[in-house]
């Protein structure tokens, strides 16, 4: 029906996911559910987006960058998958989406951007790699700052410490997961057998948490205990995104092959070389600098006896041999040479 193909730009994927960003995942899932014909562009350059963030849906001259805007736009173009819902269920969709934003999003922002371990081990390296060079120096910090402000201003305050804020938002997030799990029950999707936009949102928020290589995170282990939610995410992933899973399997296999072929020696062999090179480079640099300093007269070694040395002599440039002399008769030799020169 669309005369022109829509273009959807999203953050790149990883860990077997089509994208790592919750909102991008939600939009991708929504598009797959209702088979919207979009060209998906996986990008890492936030300057391509008018809002500095993804997802961005472009159609003709207009660009939509907020998830709700994108959903509204798609619905207007009759690409909806919520048409089978009753009005009451549509109301539930709005309510649960608000709950996800209010209760779960702060915890996820905290986990990805404010938890030191996750930020240093996963988030920062991932974004530094995904974003092209000059931007990668400051965009991750910018995003971290934004997440921090959002979490602290909406959930924290002067009356509680950051640690208390943290425990509060994680508690709320766990409760939110429980409520979602009750709502899902043993149904295939939130509202029966067909996926809805709420399933897309839940998928977006939960799958990165489920698949990311976090080490012993309480929120992740809590999610793993909600088996029906995990099942929902996995079934959406296998049904609608089979390509990414295949890619992941291939990548894993490739990595394993490489490891087998090299037998883990590369790292070991590379390491001492690097240190030796560093030391050599350092030595070379120091030698060069000291040599230059002597040659240009920045450093002068001059030793003179206290009784014969006068201030006028001390400021004369020393001849080269004087520099290396260490004898007691330094000043007399010097005087002799100068007298010869004057003669």
């Amino acid at each position, binding site marked *: 029906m669309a005369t022109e193909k829509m273009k959807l730009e999203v953050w790149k994927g990883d860990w077997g996911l089509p994208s790592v960003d919750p909102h991008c995942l939600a939009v991708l899932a929504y598009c797959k559910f209702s088979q919207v014909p979009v060209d998906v562009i996986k990008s890492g350059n936030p300057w391509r987006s008018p809002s500095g963030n993804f997802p961005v849906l472009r159609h003709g001259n207009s660009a939509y960058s907020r998830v709700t805007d994108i959903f509204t736009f798609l619905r207007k173009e009759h690409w909806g998958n919520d048409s089978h819902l009753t*009005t*009451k269920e*549509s*109301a*539930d969709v*709005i*309510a*649960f989406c*608000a*709950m996800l*934003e*209010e*209760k779960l999003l702060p915890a996820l922002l905290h986990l990805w951007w404010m938890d030191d371990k996750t930020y240093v081990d996963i988030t920062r390296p991932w974004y530094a790699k995904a974003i092209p060079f000059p931007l990668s120096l400051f965009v991750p910090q910018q995003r971290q700052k*934004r997440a921090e*402000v*959002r979490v602290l*201003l*909406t959930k924290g*305050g*002067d*009356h*509680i410490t950051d640690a*208390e804020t943290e*425990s*509060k938002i994680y*508690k*709320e997030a766990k*409760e939110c997961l*429980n*409520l*979602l799990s*009750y*709502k899902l*029950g043993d149904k295939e999707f939130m509202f029966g057998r067909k996926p809805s936009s709420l399933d897309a949102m839940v998928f977006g928020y939960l799958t990165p948490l489920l698949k990311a290589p976090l080490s012993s995170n309480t929120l992740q282990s809590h999610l793993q205990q909600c088996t029906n939610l995990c099942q929902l995410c996995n079934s959406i992933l296998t049904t609608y995104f089979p390509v990414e899973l295949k890619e992941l399997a291939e990548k894993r296999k490739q990595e394993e092959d490489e490891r087998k072929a090299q037998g883990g020696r590369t790292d070991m062999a590379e390491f001492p070389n690097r240190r030796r090179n560093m030391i050599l480079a350092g030595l070379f640099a120091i030698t060069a600098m000291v040599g230059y300093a002597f040659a240009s007269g920045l450093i002068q070694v001059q030793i003179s006896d206290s009784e014969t040395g006068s201030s006028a002599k001390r400021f004369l440039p020393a001849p080269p041999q004087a520099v290396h002399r260490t004898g007691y008769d330094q000043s007399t030799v010097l005087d002799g040479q100068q007298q010869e020169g004057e003669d």
Partner: protein
Amino acid sequence: MSLTEYAIQATLGGKKETANEPWPDDVILYQQYQVEQITLPDYAQCLAVETFLHMCGLKFRVEQRTNAEEMSPSGRKVPFIQVGPYLVSEFEPVVGFVNTKGFYLTKDMPDTERSEMRAYMSMIENIMGNAELYLAWLNTDIANEVTKPRYGCSYPWPLNWILPWRKQRDIRAKLKANEWAVKSLEEVCEEVKICCQALSERLEKKQFFFGDHPTELDALVFGHLYTIVTTILPGGHFTAVVQEFPNLAQFCKRIEDKYFKLGFD
């Protein structure tokens, strides 16, 4: 759920008899002066808590203080109740506290319905709460003509200018952080409309949101909608939106008749 409630549960956990102690007679709910001082978002919160306590059939008396905001234990959030040695502020902690005292509105609720109720409560807090803050503090006309003079009314000259300005700055920072500040007034009205539509569809022709008995959600919805409908602000943006839904207006009337007419006699 919040920290305060968590702390209370921890303190009460050890001594069950304290938790089951009947509701004391001298419970006080503190808020700012209703006629001259209180702002729209704060009044919605106060009314929601009052309604909830009325629904539970609990006795309390309302104390109006000019500095209620500074007295609050959770950092400038009104209202708060004083029950014996405990101070509890904001809607969800109060609900949690009342539950630990053995009074429930939703004891035998199935899990699915409970999760739906919590979702709608989040929606009210997220959409209505932010929209009210936006309208009261970020809309230039309303902030300058209504909100700031009211907020500063109890302070002498330089303070009645500085404190509202500082409050406005804080609210602006908060709404900027959760991306509400960039919205236009039309967009905010649209959000409110979506929220009301969802509530209206959920309520249908029923007396309360979940069958014949009131729940926390009813108290929260009443607090916000009644405040929006009855507060006269220049422009009247939200009032017009809410009045598009006749069943919500009837709902407000019903709750008012049931819980507030008796109290004022």
